[in-house]
């Protein structure tokens, strides 16, 4: 504990510390000498290309991939062309840029994934230098060709090559260059002697860093910060200039007093840094420069590589792996010698408490008097996050927890999540895993990405533990990991389909939201169709199975799965696919076995292909539907003969379907049509298209009584309806004479009240009255009322001694004119009620 500050070095206002992350597990004979090295940021893997300088065909260079702790992940002899540069993508894939501009992509395990070219121009003039960079758009590659031109691809997953404009006056390779991301664009910053240019898509603009010391005649090295916000330049006079990358502001300039060109330079800052600082490395020497004149110097035993990180620089040598960073504010406050910061006091208080000393109380009081206890807890929690040693973390967290006891309403989230985060971080920092993430990096990277990284490393159990521990929702966490595991599992060639399918189903049994179709796709891609089909069986969402089944040409299965999914659109997709794949006969046969698909297809045909619909009905001997089909078709033809012919077909089909009603009805329809046509020709009266009822009405209205009667008999129209019809038609025509005649033909099947009412409706009270006497006793009152004969109504009602009828009449009487009548009615009502 006392030695926390032992590795601290002051520089200006702040401190820098170098922490050992790992003693490297690899065994490199010559260290990193003569190696091409690439280490991925965020504690990613390290790639070494050994012996690539020796260009003899007998000795092939060896490509090796290690974890950050130096555990071997892959190793194989390099058989392709000369590699100019290695680099890692944001998703932990290795990029090897060859001299001819071809970029080969390998996974973490040395498996070849793909390759792409940086264009003809690059392959012709060869690669001189190359840089691999990361931007919000993904991983990019920038190349300086032998023709001294720059070619750039901002995202290797969506390659759009850009050739940048020429740099004026460039005769040989520039002294140094770097890639910047500014204004959502990738640009190249080039130094040619003392001149500096910015190259973007369209132009090459000369720029001058403000306040660069005049002694410099050449810029020999440059580096851009992790966030692309800052730029550091090293001149041949040994000065390091630091400023913003837009070259608008100078932050500081420091003389390193060393004039030899360095091996590497990197920014060493952290979010909320107190000062800008950079690290410059020569053979055997490392210097940290900041705002002040002084520098921190470290001696290096061995050839090393600097890996810039979000919050510091990692230094990898043949034997060690270290992290150099500015000491975070919270740690400084707490651990600085004689610090009186609340966190420091709390830590002290807790120490005393553990010793069971009353001084603990004194310290606590001191913090509490200034009401800084919650601040103190926060400091301790934050500092714990920045400490690498679990013991130190624990001490700080214990102190925080101790302080919390004296606070009410202190939100616990920060403390709880820090404990959780640290547990995860300590697990992944473990030597066997070898991902030396800092808390700051972890937060930037997110849990999701960390889990992805663990999955790439095939550390499935750990990934699952992390998900469970952090309570990541299952389908984002455990299920996803299991899916990756299964995808990996199905590619294991040595095991049989049964064994793998069983292993997968057992492991994945109760995990929610697993997409078996993705796993099956993976199996299919590795040539295991049978396994793919087995795995698809586990997919609960049948819809998901369909695309793969189609791809594997298992169309009948695809069809039944599509139907099972209930997704009509999917069924249609398969049906249409089958329609194109199969001949008509087979296609129909297949549909026949799938009623749902068949009826959907019928519906499609109804709108799109009428003739196919008929064929389908024919195939099924569905006479009823065929009949309907012809009936429908008959309405689409204008010519009478064609209509009748179609209807005749319908009749035939209906008879075959044993639907006598439909057949007879359709025969009636044909009969009516013929009749209508005949009369149209004879009498020039528009009739076709009318219903039987309307036809009769029309005939009556134009006086063709005989013809109407004929229809009435031929079509066996019920008497009641015909009487209604004739009554209304004649009244409409105001042919009262004919109506009277009609009324006397025989006893009306609808009674005579309708006669009264229809006449009244046509305002003929005189005619109406003629029928009142014929009305049945029950309807008499209504009839009298209809013609406005109050006395008659009263008479009838009283005669019938019907209370409600009497009331009805009463309600229609007016008090002024029917005074006497009302008296009578009231009396009658009284007696009626008595009864």
């Amino acid at each position, binding site marked *: 504990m006392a030695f926390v500050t032992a590795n601290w070095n002051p520089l200006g206002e702040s401190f820098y510390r170098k922490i050992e992350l790992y003693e490297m597990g690899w065994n490199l004979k010559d260290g990193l000498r003569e190696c091409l090295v690439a280490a991925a940021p965020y504690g990613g893997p390290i790639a070494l290309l050994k012996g690539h300088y020796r260009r003899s065909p007998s000795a092939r260079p060896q490509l090796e991939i290690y974890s950050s702790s130096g555990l071997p992940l892959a190793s194989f002899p390099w058989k392709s062309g000369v590699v100019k540069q290695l680099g890692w993508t944001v998703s932990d894939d290795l990029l090897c840029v060859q001299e001819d501009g071809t970029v080969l992509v390998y996974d973490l395990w040395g498996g070849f994934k793909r390759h792409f070219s940086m264009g003809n121009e690059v392959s012709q003039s060869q690669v001189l230098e190359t840089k691999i960079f990361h931007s919000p758009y993904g991983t990019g590659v920038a190349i300086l060709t032998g023709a001294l031109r720059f070619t750039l691809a901002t995202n290797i997953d969506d390659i759009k090559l850009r050739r940048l404009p020429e740099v004026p006056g460039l005769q040989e390779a520039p002294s140094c260059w770097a890639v910047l991301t500014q204004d959502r664009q990738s640009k190249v910053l080039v130094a040619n002697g003392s001149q500096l240019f910015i190259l973007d898509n369209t132009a090459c603009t000369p720029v001058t860093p403000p306040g660069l010391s005049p002694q410099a005649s050449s810029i020999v090295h440059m580096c851009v910060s992790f966030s692309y916000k800052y730029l550091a330049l090293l001149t041949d006079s040994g000065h390091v200039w630091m400023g913003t990358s837009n070259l608008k502001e100078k932050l500081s300039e420091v003389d390193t007093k060393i004039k030899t060109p360095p091996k590497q330079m990197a920014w060493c800052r952290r979010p909320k840094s107190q000062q800008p600082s950079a690290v410059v490395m020569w053979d055997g020497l490392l210097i940290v420069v900041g705002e002040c004149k002084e520098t921190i110097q470290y001696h290096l035993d061995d050839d090393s590589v600097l890996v810039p990180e979000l919050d510091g620089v990692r230094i990898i040598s043949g034997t060690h792996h270290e992290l150099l960073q500015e000491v975070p504010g919270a740690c400084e406050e707490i651990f600085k010698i004689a610090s009186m910061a609340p966190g420091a006091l709390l830590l002290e208080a807790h120490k005393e408490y553990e010793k069971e000393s009353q001084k603990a109380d004194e310290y606590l009081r001191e913090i509490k008097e200034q009401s800084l206890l919650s601040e103190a807890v926060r400091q301790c929690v934050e500092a714990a996050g920045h400490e690498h040693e679990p013991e130190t973390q624990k001490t700080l967290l214990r102190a925080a927890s101790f302080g919390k006891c004296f606070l009410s309403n202190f939100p616990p989230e920060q403390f709880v999540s820090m404990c959780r985060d640290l547990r995860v971080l300590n697990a992944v920092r473990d030597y066997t895993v070898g991902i030396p993430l800092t808390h700051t990096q972890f937060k930037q990277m997110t849990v999701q990405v960390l889990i992805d990284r663990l999955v790439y490393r095939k550390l499935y159990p750990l990934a699952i533990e992390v998900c469970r521990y952090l309570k990541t*929702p299952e389908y984002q966490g455990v299920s996803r990991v299991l899916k990756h595991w299964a995808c990996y599992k199905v590619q294991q060639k040595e095991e049989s389909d049964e064994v793998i399918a069983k292993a997968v189903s057992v492991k994945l049994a109760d995990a929610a939201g697993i997409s078996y179709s993705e796993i099956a796709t993976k199996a299919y891609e590795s040539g295991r169709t049978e396994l793919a089909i087995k795995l698809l069986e586990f997919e609960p969402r049948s819809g998901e199975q369909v695309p793969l089944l189609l791809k594997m040409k298992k169309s009948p299965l695809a069809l039944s799965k599509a139907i099972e999914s209930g997704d009509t659109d999917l069924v249609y997709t398969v049906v249409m696919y089958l329609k194109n794949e199969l001949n008509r006969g087979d296609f129909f046969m297949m549909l026949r076995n799938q009623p749902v698909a068949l009826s959907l297809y019928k519906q499609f045909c109804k709108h799109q292909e009428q003739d196919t619909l008929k064929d389908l009905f024919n195939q099924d001997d569905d006479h009823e539907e065929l009949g309907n089909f012809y009936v429908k078709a008959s309405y689409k033809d204008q010519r009478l003969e064609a209509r009748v012919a179609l209807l005749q077909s319908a009749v035939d089909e209906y008879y075959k379907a044993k639907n006598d009603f439909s057949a007879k009805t359709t025969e009636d329809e044909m009969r009516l049509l013929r009749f209508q046509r005949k009369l149209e020709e004879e009498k020039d009266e528009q009739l076709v298209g009318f219903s039987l009822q309307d036809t009769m009405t029309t005939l009556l209205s134009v006086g063709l009584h005989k013809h109407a009667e004929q229809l009435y008999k031929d079509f066996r129209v019920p008497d009641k309806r015909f009487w*209604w019809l004739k009554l209304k038609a004649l009244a409409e025509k105001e042919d009262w004479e004919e109506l009277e005649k009609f009324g006397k033909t025989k006893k009306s099947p609808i009674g005579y009240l309708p006669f009264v009412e229809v006449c009244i409706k046509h305002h003929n009270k005189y005619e109406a009255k003629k029928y009142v006497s014929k009305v049945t006793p029950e309807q008499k009152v209504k009839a009298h009322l209809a013609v406005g004969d109050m006395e008659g109504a009263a008479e009838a009602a009283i005669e019938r001694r019907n209370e409600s009828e009497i009331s009805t009449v009463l309600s229609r009487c007016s008090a002024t004119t029917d005074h006497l009548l009302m008296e009578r009615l009231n009396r009658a009502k009284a007696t009626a009620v008595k009864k």
Partner: protein
Amino acid sequence: MASHLFCGRVNLNILREAARKDLREFLDKCSGSKAIVWDEYLTGPFGLIAQYSLLKEHEVEKMFTLKGGRIPSAAVKNIVFFVRPRLELMDIIAENVASEDKLKPREFHILFVPRRSLLCEQRLKEKGVLNSFTNIDEYILDLIPYDGDLLSMESESSFRVRQSLNECYLENDQTSLYHAAKGLMTLQALYGTIPQIFAFHVANMMLRMKREFAGSHTQILPVFDTLLLLDRNVDLLTPLATQLTYEGLIDEIYGITNGYVKLPPEKFAQKKQGEGGKDLPTEPKKLQLNSAEELYAEIRDKNFNAVGAALSKKAKIISAAFEERHNAKTVGEIKQFVSQLPHMQAARGSLANHTSIAELIKDITISEDFFDSLTVEQEFMTGVDTDKVSTYIEDCIAQKDPLIKILRLVCMQSVCNNGLKQKVLDYYKKEILQTYGYKHILTLKNLEKVGLLKPQSTMRNNYPTIRKTLKLWMEDANEQNPNDISYVYSGYAPLSVRLTQVLARPGWRSIEEVLKILPGPHFEERQQVPTGLHKKRQPGENRTTLVFFLGGVTYAEIAALRFLSHMEDSGTEYIIATTKLINGTSWIKSLMDNPEENLP
């Protein structure tokens, strides 16, 4: 803007907000100024989600209706099609795109509502225009919040499609069911997994949902305790009956679409002095109807016979409130009075509107026609003379009353008699065909396919058993101060709602005999809820049940469920979801097939 969605027990505005968010995100994907080309059918449902102002905020400058030929010129960067996934619409879009000015190309986008469709994309590909689209997306609009307790999918002719799972199917198309299942998924994503599911007659749907849900786990405390899935097939009778609640009658007579009703304007003319009603407005009066309007919320579910009293009571309260001004003496009192004025004026406007509507409806309900038809309906429902030809129906046909009215009555008689004698059925059919034209033979066949019309099989009529056991007919229905759901049809208690009521208390086990008679099997299913999300009910806290009507629901049924929610000791509150809001007329209409229409 959407205050009506807050008033229910479940905040349905979450659903609306989620829908709005999706819409905004899509619009922002098509950066720059844009014009929307609308599939006309969608404008109504979209109006419930977002007003024009929202579209405007996202640079929508023009709106057109989808039709053939060239899209009207508009100086916009993007053309966005909002369409249902239908092939015939794809053909129109292809024509639009093909006739676009090649010199000033605009970017095209398609938003499929409610799902994108491979079939449609294939059609666009065949027409050679698929690559002209920058964005092809789907806008999942399954369940649209209509009111604080009401969700609807408003799918086209949902019952027609709904029949898919029955032997007597019409189209055998499960699309609507699939969307319903997806809609429930969306709902559960927002409101948590529903622990308990009851279903009637929808086995397939249940299985499907179980499978779909298997993959998802929401970390949300379940809002709903129970889901009840009711297939319209279980209760074919209710929609055929004339609804007698205020809202139900408005729908029966004028039709409510997407929360709006269009009314004859005469009664709404502003009576200004001096003008003497010279120029009456000719445009129909369009009114929005939802529970945001205090008065409407109060009277919508009342039996129409109780509306008059409620309106006059309200009138007294309002005029009393206006009289208050005379009592306001101090400045403070006057200030308070003035602050209430806008609210009071709104209330007065609302009262005037509803008084006019009530007058319009009353003109119809007091007519002899209405009375006679209602009497026959009630006779059928109580089982009077359902086995012979009804003279009333006969007379109506002879008078050539509207065909839909006839069909409603005949279907009702058939349902109440568990099918008609072959002779009776054939007689009705013949009468209808002779009077209204032979073309209606296809409509009659459709009605037979879905079971609304059927010949009586050897089985005896079991409707009376159902009616008696479930107490579907209440002789003394109290219209003014109801004590039973039967008030919504002045005597008839809707079967669907009775089933819901019995399920809550005492449970379906008590009516097993009847359940056997009703079509289709019934299920109970439990869904796993993540531990820690089990709801702890406070004492006295009601359960919340989501009742999902597959194949449509009527306003009267909704009213009955609301009545159950508000009953003092019911213990359950209901949220209603449906594939479509229907009434007998719209329902029958959706089943009609006129071969003279849709000529290609």
